[in-house]
């Protein structure tokens, strides 16, 4: 009898481990395609990019080790500071303006008016369309001679100009397109956040006699801070990587070229136009570092204003 229980326990134990092993095998089969793909196309490239940044990679992709040369040149490169400045300007303006507009529209759509789903659909439309195509359209809208913008402005008695070739205005014009493309998308996320706020808060505030503005600033905004934080982080990251619209709207020959080039544009030019892939690899690391720093800073700052109750 004692023997039997003993052997039973043994087989149960062995069965358990065999089942565990079966689970391991299954798990490895499930993750294998993804993990191999990520290793080959992302993790190995990540390491290789570091290596390239310490090398001179010429047009024929022959690498020669140059140590810190790329980085030394990079911190002396005026172009880097120019593009960094433009990128920061782009982020600092498009993110708050875009966020404010998306919050405004989400708030208006979070009321009991008719037709909210039609508005939602229309506002979302720009974010599903190809940025390259959109850039072509806006370039034509902005056209100094035949564009519709100048004739609309003319109607109000404002004199138009060549918006995209004027170094003073070009970047702002690109920003408008960037905001136009993303407001609807962020609005949807914020609206979902607003709809998640419990009605009882508003009812309590209504009893206290709080008007719509009071309710907005003392309930909606504080309760929405986690969603606002999420939208802010993703908008800042994508703002730092703006490329398609600028590439399409500002040709190399434009007078506004210098005043509109962003970090990713500079990276692209060095890697695939000038054939200096080592230098481009160092620029990519610089972009990575900047985004990292800004994101870490935001996560530290969130404790001060994001409300997770």
């Amino acid at each position, binding site marked *: 009898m004692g023997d039997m229980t003993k052997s039973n326990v043994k087989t149960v134990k062995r069965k358990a481990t065999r089942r565990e092993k*079966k*689970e*391991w095998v299954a*798990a490895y089969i*499930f*993750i294998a*395609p*993804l*993990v191999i*793909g*990520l290793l*080959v*196309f*992302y*993790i190995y490239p*990540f390491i*290789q990019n570091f290596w*390239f940044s310490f090398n001179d990679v010429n047009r024929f992709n022959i690498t020669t080790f140059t140590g810190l040369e790329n980085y030394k040149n990079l911190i002396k490169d005026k172009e880097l500071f120019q593009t960094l400045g433009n990128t920061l300007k782009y982020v600092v303006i498009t993110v708050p303006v875009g966020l404010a507009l998306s919050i405004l*529209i989400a708030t*208006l759509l979070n009321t*009991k*008016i*008719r*037709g909210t789903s039609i*508005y939602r*659909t*229309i*506002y*979302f*439309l720009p974010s*599903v*369309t*190809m940025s*390259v*195509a*959109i850039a072509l*359209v*806006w370039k*034509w809208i902005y*056209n100094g*001679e*035949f564009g519709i913008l100048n004739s609309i402005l003319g109607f109000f008695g404002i004199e138009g100009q060549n918006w995209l070739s004027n170094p003073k205005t070009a970047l702002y014009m690109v920003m408008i397109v960037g905001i*136009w493309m993303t407001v*609807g998308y962020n609005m*949807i996320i*914020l*609206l979902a*956040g607003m709809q998640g706020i419990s009605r009882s808060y508003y009812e309590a505030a209504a009893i206290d006699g709080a008007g719509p503005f009071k309710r907005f600033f003392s309930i909606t905004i504080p309760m929405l801070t986690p969603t606002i934080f999420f939208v802010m982080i993703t908008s800042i990251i994508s703002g730092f*990587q703006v*490329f*398609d619209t600028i*590439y*399409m709207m500002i040709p190399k020959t434009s007078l506004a070229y210098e005043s509109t080039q962003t970090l990713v544009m500079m990276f692209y030019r060095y890697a695939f136009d000038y054939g200096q892939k080592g230098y*481009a*690899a160092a620029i*990519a*690391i610089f*972009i*990575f570092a900047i*985004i990292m720093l800004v994101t870490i800073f935001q996560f530290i700052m969130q404790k001060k204003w994001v409300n997770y109750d």
Partner: protein
Amino acid sequence: MHKRQSFQHIMIHIILLIGTGITILPFLWMVFTSFKTVGEAMSIPPTIFPKTFNFDSYKNILESLPFGRVYLNTIISTLVTVIGQITFCTMAGYAFARLNFPGKNIIFILVLSVLMVPGQIFLVPQYMIILKMGLLDSIPALFLPNLFSAFGTFMMRQFFTSIPKELEEAAMLDGCNRFQTFGRIMVPLVKSGIVALVIFTAKFAWNDFMWPMIVNTSPKMMTLGPSLSTLQGQYITDYPAQMAGAVMAVIPMVLLFFIFQKQFVEGVAHTGVKG
């Protein structure tokens, strides 16, 4: 009270309609211009409605660009990317959410770290890999790196985590093995997640620009985005032709959006809510 409310509603509609106008006008301007003649497009002051609807610009770019081929390339690349990502991300997402295995945490952290790195870091080496594989200017070059997505895996993992464990255990007790449980029980339960990922991936793959522009440079192997950017050089002042190209590039995604509106909106809404 009632009167005040309806006045408020009218004010809200007015603001929203202004926004709607700003959102929609560029699309109308694009469509209307594509039907104008070059002469009309460049008249001063500009006309809004085309005087006559003519299809010359569509004919022109269909003749001068391998547009059919470019369309096909974009469709193939988008389809393969979507199918690949859904398959691999769903499988891996399930394992990370539900199975225990040695090294799970380290591997998952590795996946997350890919998610946090801006794409430019990978581009030069990815290009070199495609070059060494001899795949520049080919269809596989368009989709290869995009088959694998850390974002999709993370998203699917979140969906699987939210499903009660009991359903899975019941299936296992009924004698299903892991793979049967996955295919028959778990995958149908995360359908809404899969739909959201299909939409994200399709939108991304269709509209992608820098990567296809880098790897495929001959006109016949391009996708729509890069091909449109060459259109700009070819038809410097032929705005109707440029707009016709833009219309054709934009239409499939817009149609898809109108058909799957609810899924698009819900998929996006979901990303912001901690899940």
